[in-house]
């Protein structure tokens, strides 16, 4: 393992300190317990808080700021944060309109946020994101995982909260966006967790892992490496099948947002190539890709690979996607 680190035990705090220093206009860092808040506390709005294991940067701290999150709680690398972080973050940012937690659907995240929610002395609700269609939601699973679609949920809910909407409305929008979103990831290499010091899984030069999770969890299947168009074709099909299974039937010319997310070690050049093919294929299936996002938005440390996310748009989602946002990792309007 070769990484820019001093001591594996300090990597998180040193990195968070760098982040807070580089974006001191946007965020404030609090340590022990660790959480980040907006540099200027927002008033008269539902406080939107997210969090999760670290290693997915810019998720979530990179999305703190106007139009998105009020606070983020970073856990250790790939380990959910603990309830005390959420409690302190909520204490710091709530503004009498309640707190909405946005939580990726993993047992650890769910339980830690749940315990925080139970202890929280004020009104709160939780949106669980579960866009990863690699995990088919059959009888034998706890449900789908939350992956890159989480960014879209955070963006839209953050926008709505900014208008002064109430907690119920924010939760409803979050649930809707999550429902209308499906993602699937492909890994070409494993990530290496710094404390582990070696790759999470072995994969050779001629293989790829389809349906991989953002922590390097094994996916649907191991396959022979193939050309990009075929890989993307399989992903697009998985997404379309997923909508069908979940009884979501997009209309013809349905507008959609296409997000190509890099896992950390895949060059932009390849991500745009993937976008090119995926957009073409979704067009052929009758979608109109009217919004797009291409880059490293929900990473898995240094994993080479990418995920494809399709979010079905309606006027409400479009409005909240387009609205101004001012964070370290997503910024437009205003």
């Amino acid at each position, binding site marked *: 393992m070769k990484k820019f680190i001093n001591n594996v035990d300090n990597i998180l705090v040193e990195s968070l300190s760098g982040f807070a220093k580089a974006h001191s206009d946007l965020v404030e860092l609090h340590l022990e317990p660790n959480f980040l808040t907006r540099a200027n506390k927002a008033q008269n709005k539902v406080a939107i808080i997210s969090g999760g294991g670290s290693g997915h940067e810019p998720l979530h701290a990179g999305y703190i700021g106007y139009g998105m999150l009020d606070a983020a709680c970073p856990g*250790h690398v790939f380990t959910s944060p603990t309830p005390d972080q959420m409690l302190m973050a909520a204490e710091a940012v709530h503004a009498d309109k309640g707190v909405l937690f946005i939580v990726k659907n993993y047992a650890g995240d769910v339980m830690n946020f749940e315990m925080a929610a139970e202890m929280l002395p004020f009104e709160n609700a939780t949106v669980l994101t579960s866009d990863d269609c690699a995990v088919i939601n059959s009888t*034998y699973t706890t449900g789908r995982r939350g992956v890159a679609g989480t960014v879209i949920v955070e963006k839209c809910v953050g926008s709505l909260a900014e208008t002064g909407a109430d907690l119920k409305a924010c939760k409803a929008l979050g649930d809707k966006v999550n429902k209308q979103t499906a993602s699937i990831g492909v890994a070409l290499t494993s990530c290496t967790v710094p404390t582990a010091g070696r790759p999470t899984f072995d994969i050779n030069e001629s293989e790829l892992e389809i349906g991989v999770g953002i922590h390097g*969890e094994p996916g649907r299947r191991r396959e022979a490496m193939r050309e990009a168009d075929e890989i993307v074709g399989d992903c697009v099909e998985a997404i379309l099948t997923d909508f069908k299974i979940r009884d979501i039937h997009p209309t013809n010319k349905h507008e959609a947002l296409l997000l190509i997310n890099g896992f950390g070690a895949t060059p932009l050049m390849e991500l745009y190539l993937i976008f090119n093919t995926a957009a073409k294929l979704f067009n052929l299936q009758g979608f109109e890709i009217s919004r797009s996002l291409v880059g490293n938005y929900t990473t898995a440390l240094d994993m080479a690979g990418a995920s494809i996310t399709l979010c079905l748009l309606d006027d409400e989602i479009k409005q909240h996607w387009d609205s101004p946002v001012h964070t370290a990792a997503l910024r437009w309007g205003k």
Partner: protein
Amino acid sequence: MHTEFILAAAKNIQQCILANESTLESLDREIGDGDHYINMKRGANTIVELEAELTPLKPDEALNKIGMKLLSTIGGASGPLLASFFMSMAKVLKENGGDSHAKIAAAFSAGVQAIIQRGKANIGEKTMLDVLIPVAQQFEILATQTSDVNLISKSLIRTAEQGMLSTKDLIATKGRAAGLGERAIGHIDPGAKSCQLMIESVCKLVLEK
């Protein structure tokens, strides 16, 4: 149960976790995300460091403090589950006392119940519960049948081991491995392994006395 015993057990558990680094790490790399060892190590180290604070406490107070500390230290799936275990066990001990094997067994069972409630899982789902549920049941049964702590300890070590091994052939339906379907088969659940190790550590401490 005495606080002294709890502290000694914590140290034994810490040593045992550290000694099983590569096992725990590989298991979670195979069907999880590779952090289970480091989570358990962080938790164990923190509790051992708490010695001075724990020493003056009553056993139930000590266990409650351990639960709360684990809650804010471990994170991940195992954090809130183990925290819930200790806090619930503490609660029952506080209410009923811990001056008999039966009472300790009941408290242990209450801890396991808390894990079931928090994680909404049960036996056969390829989690730590595949160790903890059989151990709790066996403990309660043995506590009414015998007062031979060595016999109880040996039996629980075996039960824990069987439970841990049973996870190998299971498909996971809870936790991170639930995404894997058939691919989880053939791998022991990391949480089951660490729970088995912890139970073994504590039982061995009893046997050594």
